[in-house]
């Protein structure tokens, strides 16, 4: 069943409520609605339009130091970020420190170069705050160790874990050969059932690998969020890559329907 479509007056009412609840003062409901309104739309599309549309407005004011709304824009971003940070573990003092440093970084960044996609302002602010939280934790760890020596920079690349991964036993030629053969859905269902520890993983594996659905398409079917499905999918992929050689051979044989693949 699809969500009911809401008309323009209903949309305006939702936008007005949202602006009031967040104390967002840099747009009125009509202005903000104009950013995304096209035709009657479901509630979720309106909500997405509101926060992304206001993100664009806020971003543009934050990038304009000469503008009349510059101070207000940074005040709103600051208030919002601090409110979100309090949802995380840590002391109020930590949150305050992270918020202040994040805002300085954001201000420096936005003054230097506006975001390519202004609607991502909120996610970008989160990412900046997350990096600050990691930095703060690193500095404290360093201080605790009583060392002046800098800890290694936070290199996100996870090469170590990649190096630990086992390489596939089969040659590319054999994989291609397997791909060329007919797939046995029933065999794969049985294989997934045997391999995957939870019902959710099984369902996601079937929908993604056999029915060709993406996480955003699977999520509503299972009553989950897309990112939750993506994380389940990643665990399945990890399980597949770490299969014992024997199971990997079984799977490739199913994929190729060809006993020679395993040899």
């Amino acid at each position, binding site marked *: 069943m*699809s*969500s009911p479509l809401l008309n323009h007056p209903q949309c305006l009412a939702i936008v007005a409520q949202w602006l009031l609840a967040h104390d967002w003062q840099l747009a009125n409901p009509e202005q903000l609605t104009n950013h995304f309104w096209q035709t009657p739309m*479901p*509630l*979720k*599309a309106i*909500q*997405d339009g509101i*926060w*992304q549309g206001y993100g664009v407005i806020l971003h543009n004011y934050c990038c304009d130091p000469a503008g009349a709304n510059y101070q207000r824009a940074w005040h709103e971003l600051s208030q*919002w970020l601090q409110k*979100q940070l309090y*949802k995380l573990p840590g002391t109020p003092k930590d949150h305050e420190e992270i918020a202040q440093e994040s805002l300085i970084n954001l201000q420096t960044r936005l003054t230097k170069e506006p*975001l390519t*996609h202004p609607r*991502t302002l*909120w*996610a*970008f602010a*989160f*990412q900046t705050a*997350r990096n600050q939280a990691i930095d703060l934790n690193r500095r404290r760890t360093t201080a605790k160790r009583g060392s002046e020596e800098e800890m290694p920079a936070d*290199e*996100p*690349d*996870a*090469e170590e874990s*990649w*190096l630990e*991964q*086992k*390489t596939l036993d089969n040659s*590319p030629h054999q994989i291609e050969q*397997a*791909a060329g053969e007919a797939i046995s859905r029933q065999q*794969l269902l049985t294989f997934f059932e045997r391999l995957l520890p939870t019902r959710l993983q099984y369902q996601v594996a079937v929908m*993604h*690998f*056999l*029915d*060709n659905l*993406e*996480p*955003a398409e699977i999520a*509503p079917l299972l*009553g989950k*969020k*897309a*990112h939750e499905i*993506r*994380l389940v*999918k*990643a665990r399945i*992929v990890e399980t*597949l*890559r770490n*299969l014992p050689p024997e199971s*990997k051979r079984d799977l*490739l044989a199913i*994929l190729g329907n060809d006993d020679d693949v395993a040899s």
Partner: protein
Amino acid sequence: MMMLLPRQRLIAALAEVGLPPAGACRHSQAMLPLFVTDELSGRIVDRLYPDLANHLDRCPACRQEYADLSWWLAEAFKVAHEP
């Protein structure tokens, strides 16, 4: 990138091992705000940004950052679920 057929997806999942290309994590992290924003608003990000979607399957550090940002953004705006 072309869309993979179902069995190709499985084979790719088994075959893609080894180091991600140099700079892949930095590029992914620069793209993450766009990826999570679009995903939360229901866009099929696996088709819009297939390289990043694939990278997230392979890289635990970027996946953790993705999970944090997605959770945080969803919490912040409490987006309604489609039935």
